[in-house]
Each structure stands twice: as structure tokens, then as C-alpha cells.
């Protein structure tokens, strides 16, 4: 299984662990992640204005690069996933955006949403299969009670992302089960952590994160896992790391027994 891979800005700096553990785990699972050359930042948030074109172009470049290689495009960060999947939908279904973006890009062959965008979790669920993953687990995280924290970007708007049930998702819980741990379902797992607002409104974000933490703790979670660097930052920052928050890829690497091998790379 060979995929084009879009890491995104934060995975090369503050969220190295999300990236390094993902690549190590992918290798252990026989998945090849080919990083797109010269990828550019997706912008972090999807430009909602229907007249915004330039802000969508970096995603189109990544999508087109994957198309040229005839590969599906894998993302790791929730925000990149959200932005690129939605831009892809625009390129597929919104004639005006497609025309104007292509006019600007002057590609050899116009891009019209041909690439399939997959979050790494989707690769695990739909391509590898959680049953198959379970078989490859070497160090099952038995006994660990882990709460999945989805946040907003992975799930909504559900019609466009078609990722999971936006109100009662199961993908990360199924993942947690596959690596041998026990998922803890709590109601705030799909509520927003405050997102980018934490830059200027720290208190607002703090309040939200505290609610999330308290809810997860109340239902018995010992730790939280997420796919988003911003969620991780907000949760840690606002609640003083009441419960540890780790990337899902770190759990995966641990379960597959490859965590130690790459630990140094993370700390670099």
C-alpha cells in the first residue's frame, strides 16, 4: 500500500511526534507514505467564503501532486485533513471554484477532485482494517482507559467530510480497542477545544478545555488521545495536563512495538 503523504506545518516542528510515530507505524504495517515534494501549508482553517480562491491553492497543489502519482492522499493532522478534504470537494463539485483555481494554476491537465483524501485513521479503518491491525499489535495497551478526543475539525461538516457519525463517532474508539486498550466514551469528545481562539482569548479556550477534561475524567478516562496538534496544545495548556494527552500515532507506535526505535528522532 503506497500513499502520498501530506504532513503539514506543525508536524515538522511542534508536533514531530505525531509525524514520526505515524511513519514508523506505517512502515510496521507495510504502508508506504511518500511525502509530497514541496508541499505548502494548508492555511490551518478552511476559507469559508465562497469567493476565496487563492487561499485554497496550496491544497490544490498537494491534491494534484497525489493525482499525478495516481495515489490517495493521506493526512495526519485534523486541520490539514479538514482543509484539504473540503477544498477537494470544492474542486469536484463547485464549478466556479474549480474553473478559477485551474485558470490560476495552469496545470497540464485541469484538476477536478480526482484524488481521494484519507485521514490516517481512515486508512487504518478502511484500508488496513481494525481487525487486521489488532493482529499486528505486539504490545497491547491492555487495561489503559483512553478517551478519544475528536474535536470539531475531523467530524464537521459531516456531509462533506463523511468521516464518521458527527454526534456519536466510533472510529477512534474502535482504534483504541484494536490496540488493546479500553475506550472511554464521554459526551464532550466532539465539542470544540477553542481552536485558534486560544491565541487571543486564552480564558475562553481554557473554560472549554476544562469541561472536556472534567467530562473525560468523570467517565473514567486515564488519558486522552487526539489527532490534532492544536487540540493537544489547548488541552495541555489550559488544564495543566490534568490527564496526559497524546497523539493517536504514539499509541499506535507503542502497540506495534516501534516506539522505542524512533524515540530519539522525536526528541531531536
Amino acid at each position, binding site marked *: 500500500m503506497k500513499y502520498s503523504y501530506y504532513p503539514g506545518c506543525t508536524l515538522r516542528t511542534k*508536533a514531530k511526534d505525531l509525524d514520526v510515530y505515524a511513519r514508523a507505524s506505517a512502515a510496521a504495517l507495510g504502508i508506504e507514505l511518500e511525502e509530497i515534494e514541496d508541499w505548502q501549508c494548508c492555511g490551518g482553517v478552511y476559507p*469559508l467564503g465562497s*469567493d476565496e480562491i487563492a487561499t485554497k491553492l496550496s491544497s490544490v497543489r498537494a491534491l494534484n501532486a497525489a493525482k499525478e502519482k495516481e495515489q490517495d492522499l493521506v493526512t495526519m493532522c485534523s486541520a490539514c485533513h479538514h482543509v484539504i478534504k473540503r477544498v477537494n470537494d470544492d474542486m469536484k463539485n463547485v464549478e466556479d471554484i474549480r474553473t478559477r483555481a485551474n485558470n490560476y494554476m495552469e496545470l497540464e491537465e485541469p484538476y477536478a477532485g480526482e484524488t481521494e483524501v484519507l485521514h490516517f485513521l481512515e486508512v487504518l479503518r478502511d484500508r488496513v482494517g481494525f481487525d487486521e491491525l489488532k493482529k499486528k499489535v505486539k504490545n497491547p495497551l491492555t487495561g489503559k482507559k483512553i478517551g478519544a478526543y475528536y474535536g470539531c475539525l475531523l467530524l464537521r461538516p459531516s456531509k462533506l467530510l463523511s468521516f464518521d457519525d458527527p454526534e456519536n463517532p466510533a472510529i477512534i474508539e474502535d482504534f483504541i480497542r484494536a490496540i488493546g486498550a479500553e475506550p472511554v466514551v464521554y459526551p464532550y469528545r466532539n465539542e*470544540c477545544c477553542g481552536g485558534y481562539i486560544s491565541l487571543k482569548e486564552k480564558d475562553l479556550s481554557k473554560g472549554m478545555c476544562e469541561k472536556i477534561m472534567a467530562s473525560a475524567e468523570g467517565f473514567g478516562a486515564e488519558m486522552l488521545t487526539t489527532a490534532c496538534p492544536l487540540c493537544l496544545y489547548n488541552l495541555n495548556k489550559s488544564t495543566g495536563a490534568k490527564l496526559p494527552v497524546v497523539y493517536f500515532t504514539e499509541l499506535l507506535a507503542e502497540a506495534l512495538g516501534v516506539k522505542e526505535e524512533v524515540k530519539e528522532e522525536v526528541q531531536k
Partner: protein
Amino acid sequence: MSSEKKQAELIKEISGVNPLKCMKCGKCSATCPSYNEMDIKPHQFVSYVINEDIESLVNSKSLWKCLSCFACVERCPRDVKPGKLIDAARQVVVRQKDQNYLLADEIPELLDPELPQQLLVSAFRRYRR
């Protein structure tokens, strides 16, 4: 066309939202995690656009409190999507000269060692042009 009317039309165009579809059930306000911080509440965005009171809307605190978390978009039973309206209003503001909500000079004091790039990038996208 008055300038407020023009701006109302612009907001409708940028957002792609038809505010007349709203049945005023209040589910957006019931669902909004930033509700208490907002002076104009999510369900009111719609009436401000319908009544073309854009002046109040663009000067509201709410503009900068919306998280773009799409909870209102997802749960709206009438496909109105108040979150898109507020984002369009924000666009109307930041596209004007010198109306950025976030200035480069502010950044250093907002930083801390763990702060992910993603946060800066996103904030830049939402807060300024």
C-alpha cells in the same frame, strides 16, 4: 443601494447562506460553545443580516469569538448555517484597509514555547488579510 444593503448582499453572497430559511428555533445558540462571550448571539446573526443592520454586526464582539467549530452548521435543522454568516461578516471587516484583528506586533507576547504553528496560521487566516 445603500451601503448597508450592499454589505448585507455581500455577506449573503460570500457565505452562500439564505437567512430567510431560518425558522428561529435557536438551536445554533443552544449549541454554541462561545455563547456566553458573544454580544450578538448566533441565532441573531440571521436577523441582523435580514434587517441589514450590518454596522452592529461588524462591530460586535461575537465576530471574534466564533470558533468556526461548525457545531451550529452541523445541527441547524434548516440548513441556514449561522457560522458561515459570521465568517462572511468577518471577511467583510478584514478585507477593509487596516481592519486586521491581529497585528504582527502583537505576536511575540502571545507566543509560548509549545505553541504550534497551526495556531498562528489559523489565527492569521481568520483574523487578518
